[in-house]
């Protein structure tokens, strides 16, 4: 099936394409397929295409005085996606996380307020395979869907001024990793020793929209070991391909 899309002019040079307002895999796959197809069509005046949960933003290199025409072109491309695929070519990334108290500033308070033992919080956080919906907020920040419902936690009333690089946290119905040090209102439950953003690399993030992520728990020794390997540029992140 294909979705009923809305096209809106956004500023003088962009068209926003919106899917129904839901966070779900079939919508994400459909919009990522559409994004790939627009790229394949090689329209020269398109500067870039950005994606989020249920929207694409097509940015042009000039003012869109005849944007109705551009919308017709885009919609014609979308119509060629007659059968929406249920999957998307992607990778599953295995992310090490240390849930030790020295990083997990908020896990004890979370355990008390939710009446869930710390071990069980870690189990529920690592048992799930998350979907990378898109990257936003900070360079390299993955928007992940799939958090276990019992771990949903409203954001803090007062954000922390400094959340460490690598902090793994829960905010609302989302979980994520802070790729760089930043202020933040999420509850920190661990830390990952691997880098999520490197501006000096051709591809600054290893993950992309559509990929999957699973966390696994490591102790402080393993954390320091991986940190060292990362420092020496010898760490290889574990992943497997998933064919769509």
């Amino acid at each position, binding site marked *: 099936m294909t979705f009923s899309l809305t096209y809106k002019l956004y500023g003088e*040079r962009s068209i926003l394409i919106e899917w129904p307002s839901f966070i779900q895999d079939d919508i994400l796959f459909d919009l990522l397929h559409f994004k790939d197809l627009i790229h394949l069509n090689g329209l020269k005046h398109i500067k870039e295409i950005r994606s989020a949960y249920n929207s694409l*933003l097509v940015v042009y290199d000039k003012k869109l*005085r005849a944007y109705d025409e551009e919308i017709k072109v885009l919609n014609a491309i979308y119509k060629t996606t007659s059968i929406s695929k249920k999957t998307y070519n992607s990778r599953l990334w295995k992310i090490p996380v240390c849930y030790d108290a020295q990083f997990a500033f908020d896990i004890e308070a979370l355990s008390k307020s939710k009446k869930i033992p710390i071990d069980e919080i870690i189990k529920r956080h690592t048992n799930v395979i998350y979907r990378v919906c898109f990257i936003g907020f*900070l*360079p390299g920040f993955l928007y992940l869907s799939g958090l276990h419902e019992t771990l949903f936690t409203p954001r803090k009333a007062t954000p922390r001024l400094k959340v460490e690089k690598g902090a793994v946290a829960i905010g609302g119905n989302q979980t994520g990793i802070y790729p760089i040090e930043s202020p933040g209102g999420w509850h920190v439950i661990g830390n990952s020793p691997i880098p999520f953003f490197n501006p000096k690399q051709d591809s*600054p*993030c290893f993950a992309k929209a559509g990929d999957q992520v699973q966390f696994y728990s490591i102790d402080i020794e393993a954390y320091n070991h991986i940190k060292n390997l990362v420092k020496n540029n010898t760490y290889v992140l574990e992943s497997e391909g998933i064919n769509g």
Partner: protein
Amino acid sequence: MVDVLQAGFYSSIQDLGRYGFQDYGVPYSGVMDEQAATIANLLLGNNTKDAVLEMTIIGAKLKFECDTLICLSGAYMNPQLNKKPIKNNKVFKVHSGDVLSFGKLESGCRCYLSVLGGFKTEKVMESRSMYQHITAQSTIRKGDKLAIEPSSLKHERHYSNLRINSSYLLNSTLNVLKGPEFEKLSIKQQEQVLNTNFTISKLNNRMAYQLESPIENSLESIITSPVLPGTVQLTPSGKLIVLMRDCQTTGGYPRVMQLTKSALNVLGQKFVGQTVKFNLISKF
């Protein structure tokens, strides 16, 4: 090289921005006033993409270690070359050892300095625009040496004498298009956003300008979606936030209006306490 003797209030190297990396969560960045930066570059015969120095409210003090040509545009900060007053929008020869300094800010908020060939500071992800965690520095600092290409000046002759219209620095009307969530506003809210004189809050920087005078708001957040520099967001408290060049790539507040490119230049020349008004246009 250019020696930074004093950095000023907030000065950074900027070009037209970092495009093609938004899907990694990387902001566009780039000069806040593209018109002024472009004039400063073009008067020197530079490429419009060459990097310039953007100075905010208080100018820097710079010593040149080689000969070059310079041009200033945008905010007027009473510039002086070796303590002699010089003008904006005019090309000046600079010799090794010369010192450029600035005095009181008279109009606008951001002044642009171009040098022949542009500043050659660190390029990351195809841009020299400074941004925290992308480039090594987010601003220039006292003691920095900024790379530029030396020029013999022997063959450099500039006869151009352009009359530059700087009246936009005094403009307080911001042309806007409807944002993706404009129609979600009630008629009363639409009238409020379009008829209020908004004062710029002290919370203004290269990422966003917050505006005082909240309007009534009952709109719910949206599912996080792309945003652009110039997007006017309506926050739960009813305050409007205008996103600027260093803004995040995505956001969850309703996007009620979108500034035109030229309105974004106008706002980038405003500071705390000044007022602005939105003017809805349908054709551009």
